[in-house]
């Protein structure tokens, strides 16, 4: 430093010489650096600041000036610099200083929302804000730059990208779908329900956004339908449980597809209809009307229209016209089936019908009523139809309705089938009490069986289940499943068919077919003892076949008087001399007879007489020997002092049985035994006045001979047997009642 100063003199030491400062300028590098640092700081601070924007929120929970940050795609893109209420006190004005790199956020269309934790069934978002505090989130818009925004009250569904396609779906009601519900196309989630709203006119609609990459799938022919959260469907194939994915499990979803071939992509904000189900979505043909007199079972939006058994459409709405007393159904078909709507189309409402005639439309029991469409596809196109209400296969009109009276109607009810020769010919329409406390069944006979119903037709009850037993048979009859439950009615004409019946004819209902068949005038028979006889049950038999029925039993004058009827064609039993005998089981030492009656009950064996027709009282017999009654032929008598021969013993002629002992009695004076014998008609010419009768079966006689004359017949014929032979010069033929002597020994 001294070198730079002029050498100061000794005396001169008060003089200050200004030192040249050039050399010390380096010291000022510090303030220069400081200024530079400060300037850089200011500059960088200034340049890092983007524009200041203002966002209006309805509320701003947890937003703090100076602390809350704006986050865009997870990056802090700005700071809240001011929070204040707006002038109207109905909103919050949040001022945000954007960072420079995020200044593009200040453009129209940018959405701002407050990110707060949302925990719901559909989603859980914003959990980080629990720890970090609420933040403001942004989604980039693409408009011109602006500085005022309206904040969203909720986070948008697609926080990153703005949706490329937004459409609205109109529906009369939207039951459960809500924000966030997925939208599927062929099972792929392609969008979300953004909002659910009611417009000014009261219509509900869903705002749906479709992902950008799938927007082209929405065509103007697309049909949208609701996927139920969980659907449990019963069908003829059984029950099926459909769960369309876990998200849809809780909140349901929407599906769409284009069923028509040609479609163009839609513009933003396009309107679509939202169908309640897939099948209703498929039915996108023109609307048409079907008018029903009674639409019971129809459900708007549910009932399907089937064509050849396949669902092709559905009923959209139902409107009751109270003035015309009709129901107007608006229906739609799938577009491809629309050509079926012609003037010759027929619509028939099919409801489940579990009547006793059978079960029809069973599938509708599960699926609900449906409407069957029949169409040839010919005729003029039409959009207005009259629907029939029907059950399958049964003509609705036609046929004849008659009344049938009955004493009582234990288990017959409306719907019970009416059979004709095993075919269902009609049904019981109504069961009511007629005049005079007589129950009346109103019966409809279908058209094709109308001709079978004659004025003289007889109706009888078909028991639900009948068990009948006879010798060698036990038969259980079940008249089909429907009759099993309820029984039915059958009819037939057992005589020459009468005139066709009309609706005014009255009929009587009989308890059984046997009763119905017994159509003759009553035959009255008196019995000493009516044991085992049952009115309506005990049969009349001729030659073992049932030919009539005991109608009623009463006692008069100490006798049992039975009124019976015989079937058509057996009137000849009503002759003078006819024999009616009660046949019942006899178990005795002499044998077992009438064994079949143990099962079948007693019956009355009839043997026609030869006299004239009569309406008088017959005298019945109680017989244990039915064979007696059956024998026809020459009746003779054989007398003997003493014999072991009993009734039933055969009469032998040259080892041929030609007749039978039918009765063994003591003669009037008690001195001898009188056997009554019947010789078969065809053999009666063998019998002559000089015929010789002898006891041919005597066991004792046989034992006495060493020649072993024990004949096998003795075992077979315990009653013994009687033989006869004629001498070489036969006498005259005998007349009935001729008396022979029974000899011990054969004719020599």
């Amino acid at each position: 430093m001294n070198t730079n100063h002029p050498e100061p003199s000794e005396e001169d030491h008060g003089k200050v010489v200004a030192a040249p400062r050039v050399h010390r300028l380096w010291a000022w590098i510090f303030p220069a650096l400081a200024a530079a640092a400060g300037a850089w700081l200011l500059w960088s601070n200034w340049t890092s600041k983007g524009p200041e924007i203002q966002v209006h929120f309805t509320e701003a929970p947890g937003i703090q000036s100076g602390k809350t940050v704006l986050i865009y795609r997870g990056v802090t893109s700005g700071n809240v610099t001011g929070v204040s209420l707006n002038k109207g006190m109905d909103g919050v004005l949040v001022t945000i200083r954007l960072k420079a790199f995020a200044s593009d956020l200040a453009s129209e269309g940018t959405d701002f929302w407050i990110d707060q934790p949302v925990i719901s069934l559909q989603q859980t978002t914003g959990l980080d804000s629990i720890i970090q505090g609420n933040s403001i989130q942004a989604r980039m818009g693409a408009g011109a730059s602006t500085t005022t925004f309206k904040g969203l009250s909720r986070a948008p569904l697609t926080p990153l990208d703005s949706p490329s396609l937004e459409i609205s779906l109109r529906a009369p009601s939207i039951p459960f779908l809500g924000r966030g519900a997925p939208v599927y196309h062929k099972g792929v989630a392609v969008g979300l329900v953004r909002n659910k709203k009611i417009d000014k006119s009261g219509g509900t609609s869903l705002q749906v956004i479709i992902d950008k990459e799938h927007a082209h799938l929405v065509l103007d022919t697309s049909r949208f339908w609701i996927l139920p959260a969980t659907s449990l469907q019963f069908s003829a194939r059984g029950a099926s449980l459909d769960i369309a994915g876990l998200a849809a499990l809780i909140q349901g979803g929407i599906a769409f597809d284009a069923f028509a071939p040609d479609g163009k992509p839609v513009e933003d904000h396009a309107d679509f209809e939202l169908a309640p189900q897939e099948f209703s979505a498929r039915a996108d043909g023109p609307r048409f009307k079907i008018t029903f007199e009674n639409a019971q079972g129809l459900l708007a939006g549910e009932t399907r229209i089937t064509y050849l058994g396949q669902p092709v459409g559905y009923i959209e709405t139902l409107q009751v016209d109270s003035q015309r007393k009709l129901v107007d159904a608006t229906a739609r078909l799938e577009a491809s089936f629309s050509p079926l709507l012609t003037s010759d189309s027929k619509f028939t409402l099919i409801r489940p019908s579990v009547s006793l005639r059978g079960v029809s439309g069973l599938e509708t029991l599960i699926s609900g009523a449906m409407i069957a469409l029949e169409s040839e596809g010919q005729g003029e196109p039409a959009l207005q139809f009259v629907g029939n209400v029907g059950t399958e296969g049964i003509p609705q009109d036609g046929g004849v309705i008659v009344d049938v009276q009955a004493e009582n109607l234990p288990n017959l009810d409306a719907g019970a089938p009416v059979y004709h020769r095993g075919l269902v010919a009609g049904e019981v329409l109504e069961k009511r009490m007629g005049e005079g406390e007589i129950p009346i069944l109103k019966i409809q006979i279908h058209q094709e069986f109308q001709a079978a119903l004659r004025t003289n037709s007889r109706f009888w009850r078909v028991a639900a289940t009948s068990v009948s037993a006879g010798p060698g048979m036990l038969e259980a009859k079940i008249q089909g499943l429907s009759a099993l439950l309820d029984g039915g009615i059958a009819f037939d004409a057992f005589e020459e068919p009468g005139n066709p019946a009309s609706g005014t004819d009255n009929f009587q209902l009989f308890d059984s077919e046997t009763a119905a068949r017994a159509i003759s005038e009553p035959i009255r028979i008196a019995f000493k003892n009516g044991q085992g006889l049952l009115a309506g049950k005990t049969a009349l038999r001729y030659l073992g076949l049932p030919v009539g029925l005991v109608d009623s039993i009463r006692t008069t004058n100490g006798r049992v008087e039975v009124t019976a009827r015989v079937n058509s064609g057996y009137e000849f039993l009503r002759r003078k001399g006819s024999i009616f005998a009660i046949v019942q089981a006899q178990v005795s030492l002499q044998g077992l007879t009438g064994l079949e009656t143990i099962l079948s009950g007693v019956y009355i064996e009839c043997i026609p007489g030869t006299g004239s027709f009569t309406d008088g009282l017959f005298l019945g017999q109680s017989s244990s020997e039915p064979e007696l009654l059956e024998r026809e032929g020459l009746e003779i008598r054989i007398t003997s002092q003493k014999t072991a021969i009993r009734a039933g013993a055969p009469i032998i002629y040259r080892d041929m049985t030609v007749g039978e002992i039918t009765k063994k009695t003591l003669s009037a004076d008690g001195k001898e035994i009188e056997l009554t014998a019947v010789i078969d008609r065809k053999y009666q010419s063998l019998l002559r006045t000089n015929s010789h009768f002898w006891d041919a079966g005597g066991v004792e006689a046989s034992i006495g001979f060493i020649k072993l004359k024990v004949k096998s017949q003795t075992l077979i014929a315990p009653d013994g047997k009687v033989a006869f032979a004629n001498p070489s010069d036969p006498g005259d033929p005998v007349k009935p009642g001729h008396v022979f002597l029974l000899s011990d020994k054969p004719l020599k």
Partner: protein
Amino acid sequence: MTDATRLELSRALVVAGLILYVPANIMPVMIMTVAGEVAPLTVMGGVQELYDSGLAPVAAVVFVASIMIPFLKLIGLSWLMLMHGSDQLPRERTTLLRVLHQIGTWSMIDIFLLGVLVAVGQLGILASVEAQAGGLFFAAVLLCSLFAADLYQPRMIWQLASP
């Protein structure tokens, strides 16, 4: 080092300190994250925070120590620099210089505290403290004033005041 150089350097450092004082107070010295809440704190902000949380005495201490004293030190040094060469109040100026020198011993306490906070206050997600550029500036201010006070010797007051 000649007195002239000392003087020049001292002046330059005072000027630099004054410049740096501005960003040191504007910029946050640290960012505290407590329970998710991010709080960038300037020195003045810290005082405010303390005061708001009812710690007025502490706020006062921090205010005096961190804001007033550095500021007054810079002002005092600036005054000394301006008065250099004058023969007025040499005694008082000498006392002031000594006082400023003494204070300088404690002046780095803020920075020390900041260092401790940053080191200690790392509680993961619950709380964390990060030093920010403001602290650097603040330290720079303190260093400037420290060196300026040290370079300017009391004798330099007297040398020129009594030729």
